[in-house]
């Protein structure tokens, strides 16, 4: 049993860290994000070149078959430098869902791996909360193809997607766990309205309205829920590691600030109250990291235990991450609130990570179920 990364994983983390420093130094990051997809184009190409886009993709789909530990190393590295971009949506979540389609989807998966194409999964609906089984969107056979009708309230990182993976009902009622199938929908297909929004962390999301939209069935009809839940849990692992990387980075920045910033003629880190706050932040980081280990430990116990562990981690890392981000801003005072330091960007990303693929409240009740 070992809680540290293997040499290979450590090397991966190391290169992700260097990548982040090089492509998204705090001084440049904000400017690049404001450019949207074009601001991330160069770095995306570099990731493709490094093989990272292929890393999470299963070997049978032509990927590198990276496991949870590799995803965590990547996520942690991204989090430390707040690397933006739709990596988790496009490279972790989408390929796992497309894999359901077997070799019919290998071309598209390959294009994801080369960075040519972005795919996003349109999972959440109005009135569904964060429940993945709450699907009112319906698919019907029309001649030789399927048409979809409905709406998706939020597509994580769907703002730049070329394709959407859309769960829709081929049977059952809105809240049923059965009768859900997956469809591939082109972003430019007639009848599809894509509304695009930016989050406070610069991520670009979408909201869809589907009005008789043509979709291509991915894999077998029905019973897609298990695949969706498994894929989302896997995506969450990368997000959770990103949150931990971000927490640790912003804690380190804050500790350094406490050591060097002077007020009332002494370093502010000499004030006991700020020392203890810094300790609480550090404990929160340790708890969060422990939850990543808990996920890893659960892997041997099957998908149900794994998903329960992910829910537990979403709760605690969500809480700890936002707490650490808030305290980092607080301890920095006014400059922490400014956009110029990276500190507030960590808080904003933590706030968004805490609700990505399920809020703390949602996952607490899933854990309890």
């Amino acid at each position, binding site marked *: 049993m070992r809680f540290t990364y293997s040499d290979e994983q450590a090397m991966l983390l190391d290169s992700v860290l260097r990548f982040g420093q090089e492509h998204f130094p705090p001084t440049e990051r904000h400017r690049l994000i404001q450019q949207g997809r074009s601001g991330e184009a160069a770095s995306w190409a570099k990731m493709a070149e490094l093989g990272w886009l292929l890393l999470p993709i299963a070997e049978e789909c032509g990927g590198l078959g990276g496991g949870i530990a590799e995803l965590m190393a990547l996520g942690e590295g991204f989090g430390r430098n707040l690397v933006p971009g739709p990596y988790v949506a496009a490279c972790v979540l989408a390929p796992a869902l497309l894999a359901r389609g077997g070799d019919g989807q290998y071309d598209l998966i390959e294009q994801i791996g080369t960075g040519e194409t972005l795919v996003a999964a349109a999972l959440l609906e109005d009135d569904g909360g964060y429940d993945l089984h709450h699907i009112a969107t319906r698919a019907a056979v029309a001649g030789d193809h399927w048409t979809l009708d409905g709406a998706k309230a939020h597509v994580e990182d769907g703002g730049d997607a070329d394709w959407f993976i859309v769960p829709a009902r081929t049977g059952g009622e809105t809240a049923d766990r059965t009768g859900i199938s997956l469809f591939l929908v082109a972003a430019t297909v007639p009848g599809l309205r894509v509304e695009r929004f930016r989050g406070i962390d610069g991520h670009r999301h979408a909201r869809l309205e589907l009005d008789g939209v043509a979709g291509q069935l991915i894999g077998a009809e029905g019973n897609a829920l298990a695949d969706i839940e498994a894929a989302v849990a896997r995506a969450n692992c990368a997000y959770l590691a990103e949150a931990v990387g971000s927490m640790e980075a912003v804690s380190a920045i804050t500790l350094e600030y406490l050591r060097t910033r002077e007020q009332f003629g002494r370093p502010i880190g000499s004030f006991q*109250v700020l020392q203890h706050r810094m300790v609480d932040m550090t404990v929160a980081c340790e708890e969060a990291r422990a939850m990543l280990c808990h996920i890893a430990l659960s892997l041997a116990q099957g998908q149900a235990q794994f998903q329960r562990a992910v829910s537990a981690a979403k709760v605690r890392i969500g809480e700890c991450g936002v707490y650490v981000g808030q305290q980092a801003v607080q301890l920095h005072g006014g400059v922490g*609130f400014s956009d110029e330091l990276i500190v507030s960007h960590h808080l904003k990303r933590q706030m968004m990570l805490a609700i990505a693929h399920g809020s703390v409240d949602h996952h607490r009740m899933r854990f309890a179920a």
Partner: protein
Amino acid sequence: MEFELDPADLAFREEVRDFFATGIPPEWRTRVRAGLRLHPEELIAYQKSLAERGWGAPTWPVEYGGTGWSPIRQYIFWTEAAAADAPAQFHQGLELIGPIIFTYGSQALKDRYLPGIINADDWWCQGYSEPNAGSDLASLRTRAVREGDDYVLNGQKAWTSYGHVASHCFVLARTSDEPKRQQGISLLLMDMKTPGITIRPVATMDEKHHTNEMFLDDVRVPVAQLVGEEGRGWEYGKVLLDRERMVTASVAIFLVQTVKGIREAATRRTIGGVPLIDKPGFKAKLAQYEIEVIALQTMVLKVMADAAAGVDSGPLGSMIKLRWSQLSQAGTALWVGALGPQAAHFAPLDNGYALPADMPYAMQGALYARVTSIYGGSSEIQHNIIAQRALGLKG
């Protein structure tokens, strides 16, 4: 204990209620509830409407153009304003410099500046903080050197809120070096059109331009613009502590607006057909929040009643600031949580697409709320103040 309002106060409440029954534009509502400042032109319009009614300065004595209201009437006024989704009045002129001017300023300064504050012809900003003098304000370095009939100011100010909007600025600057750092600091009133003032916007995490850096480069301020005596600027702020309590207290009254914002968001959003507000988990959270707001409101009322009775409220003002910032943060966070996944939809990337009903304001309010525990004496400083002044604990 007596908790009934007397009949005259009850009649006053009706009068205020009538005033607010018309006149607050509905498009202000979400921003007000999220604890966000309205646009300057909106705030100016609001202030002018109050001034027209004679209510421009609820906390000022009649002789300076104020209402002369008792603290209880101020409480009633703000409670009704909050109930009507009216904004808090912009406070930098009304509460920060106005009272200093009418307490310590020359007759000329009073005549020149007080009316403009009440009728919103002037907009004041505060030039106190510096890059290395935030919580530790006494370490400020901006200098004002006397040259003939002018002071010549050089230095750099930080967190100059609404400096990009203001017509005037009240500045603390060092006019002499004294062994005690709090001495030798003077308070000057400065026209923002004076040559040598440069305003540089500071981008903040709420993506709203409200604060700035201000660079002072040989800025000449006439000696007549000095408030009170040279070198005593520090004291003037301190003496007004009691008034400052009222300022935070009045803002705290407006938290009922946040409750309304949360409630409406949670009523609008359904999960599985059930409004979020009817889900036991959310219900409990909102109830908890409302109860804590009630506790704070009642603390505010107590400060007001104490003031009316001439009783010293001790550290209650600092406590209200502390709890108010905590509840601003908790409330806006609860609101954002009520939006669900769409809390990630902060700004549209294309034209023609509408944001969710509360956005971006609910989120902007949640982000802005983070600074409420930093500005005006951080929560840590408030703790120090209470520990030392009220509890008599020494470092």
